[in-house]
C-alpha cells in the first residue's frame, strides 16, 4: 500500500522552519523524509507558484555575488493556518491508520 504525498503540504511544512529557495526546499523534503519523497524538479516550481498564487507563501528575490539571484520563499499567516489544517488532517488520518494497523491488543 502506498500513500500519495501532497507536495504542497510538504512544502508548507519545510517552510515552517525557515525561508528557503526552491533547490533547498527540494533537498529538505528529501532529507527530512529520509528519501521517502523524491519529487521531480519539474513538479516543484509549479507547486510553489500555485501556493504563491493562493497566498499561502510569499517570496522575494535575493541577489547573490557571482551567482544567479535566488527567489526565497516564506510562509504567510494564511499559509501557517493552512499548514495547521494539514497537520490536523494528517494527525487524524494517521491515528486512524495506526489504530487499524496496530497490534490487536492495543485496540
Amino acid at each position, binding site marked *: 500500500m502506498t500513500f500519495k504525498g501532497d507536495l504542497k503540504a510538504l512544502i508548507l511544512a519545510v517552510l515552517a522552519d525557515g525561508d528557503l*529557495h*526552491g*533547490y533547498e526546499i*527540494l533537498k529538505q523534503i528529501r532529507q527530512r523524509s529520509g528519501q521517502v519523497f523524491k519529487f*521531480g*524538479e*519539474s*513538479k516543484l*516550481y*509549479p507547486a510553489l*507558484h*500555485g501556493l*504563491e*498564487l493562493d497566498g499561502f507563501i*510569499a*517570496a*522575494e*528575490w535575493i541577489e547573490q555575488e557571482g*551567482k*544567479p*539571484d*535566488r*527567489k526565497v520563499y516564506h510562509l504567510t499567516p494564511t499559509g501557517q493556518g493552512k499548514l495547521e489544517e494539514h497537520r490536523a488532517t494528517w494527525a487524524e488520518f494517521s491515528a486512524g491508520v495506526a489504530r487499524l494497523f496496530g497490534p490487536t491488543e492495543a485496540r
Partner: protein
Amino acid sequence: MKHTLSSYLEDLEARLPLLTEPQRVEIIAEYRAHITAEITAGTPEHEVLRKFGKPAKVAHQFYTTYGVYEWFRKWQFATLAFMAILAVGMNWYAFGNPAKVLNGSIPPVWLWNLSYFVIGPMGYWWFTYRCRSQRVIPMLITFFVLLLGFAMTNLPMANASNGAANVNFALLPKTTEEAMSLSAVSTPLEQLAKAAANAADSTQFAKLLSSTQQAVVDQQRYLRFDRTGSGTFLIPMTESVPAKINGATVNFMAVRFAFTDNSKTALAAWKRRARDIDSLVSQTRPSVIEFTTGLRSYTIWYLLSRSASWVLAGQYFGFVAGVGLLASQLPPRRNRRRSRTSSA
C-alpha cells in the same frame, strides 16, 4: 535534442503557457538558479537537465497553475461537447436540418460554422498537447482554419461579376429554382428573381423592378447599389414569416447582381428608388449590417433575421477572440530586460 543550460531555458521559456512576461522571466530565473546550484554542487549539467525532464514536460506542469488552456485540457470533452452542441444548435436553428447539407439541399454553411466552434479549438489542442510542437505551428494552423471559415462564410457574397447580369444566390439557395421555391416569396419577387437571372441588360431588369416596386416595398424587400453600379437585392425575412427552402427554414437570402449597361440615368433613377426603399425599410427594419471585405470594392449587405444575426455575431466574436488568443500565444521576445520585482 541535446540541450545546454541556456538552450534548455530558452526552449522552456518558449513553451511556458499563457504567462505574462515578468512571470516567464521569473520562472526561468528560478530554474537557472536551481540548475546552477546543482551544477555547483557537483552534478553534471546534462544530468541535472535530464532530471528536470524535457522542456515540454516541465512547461506542461505550469498549465495547472497558469494556463487558460489547462481548464480546456482538464475539461476538454465537456468543452468540445458544449461547443459542438452550441454550434449544432445555432446552425440548426438558423439554417435547418443538417441532413439538408448532406443531400445538397442547402450549401454547407453548417460546416463553415463548425470550423469556428470545433475545428479551431480541437486543432489547437491536438497540435499543442498531442504533437507537443512549437506553438507557432498550431497557431498558424488555427489561424488559417479561422481565416478559411471566415472567408468561406463571407466572400461568396462578393462574387458578383460585372459581366452579364448575374444572380448569385451565394448564401443559401443554390439555383434560381431553389430561390423561387421560397414559400414566403410572392409573385412579384418570383418575377424579379427570374428576370434578374435571365435579364439581358439592366433595362429589362429596371422595367420589371419598376412594375413591382410597390409590392417590393410592401413586403420589405430591399435594393442597394454600390459604387460599381452593381447591387444587392436583399430579402429580409421577418421572424413571423420564415422562408422555406425544400421544407427547411431559411432566415435570410441575398441576390446579387451586376449590370451590363451602367446607364447613369437609369442608375440615378434606381438609386432614388433605392433611397426611398431604404428610408422606408430603415424605419421598420434597422438590422442591416454593412460589411466591406477590403479585398474587392464590393459592399456586402446582410439583412438577417435575429437567429442568423446570432450566428454571424458568434462568427465574428470567434474570429476576433481566436486571433486575440493566438496573438497572446506568441513566443516571448528574446533579449528583453529582466524584471526583478518581488511577487510576494
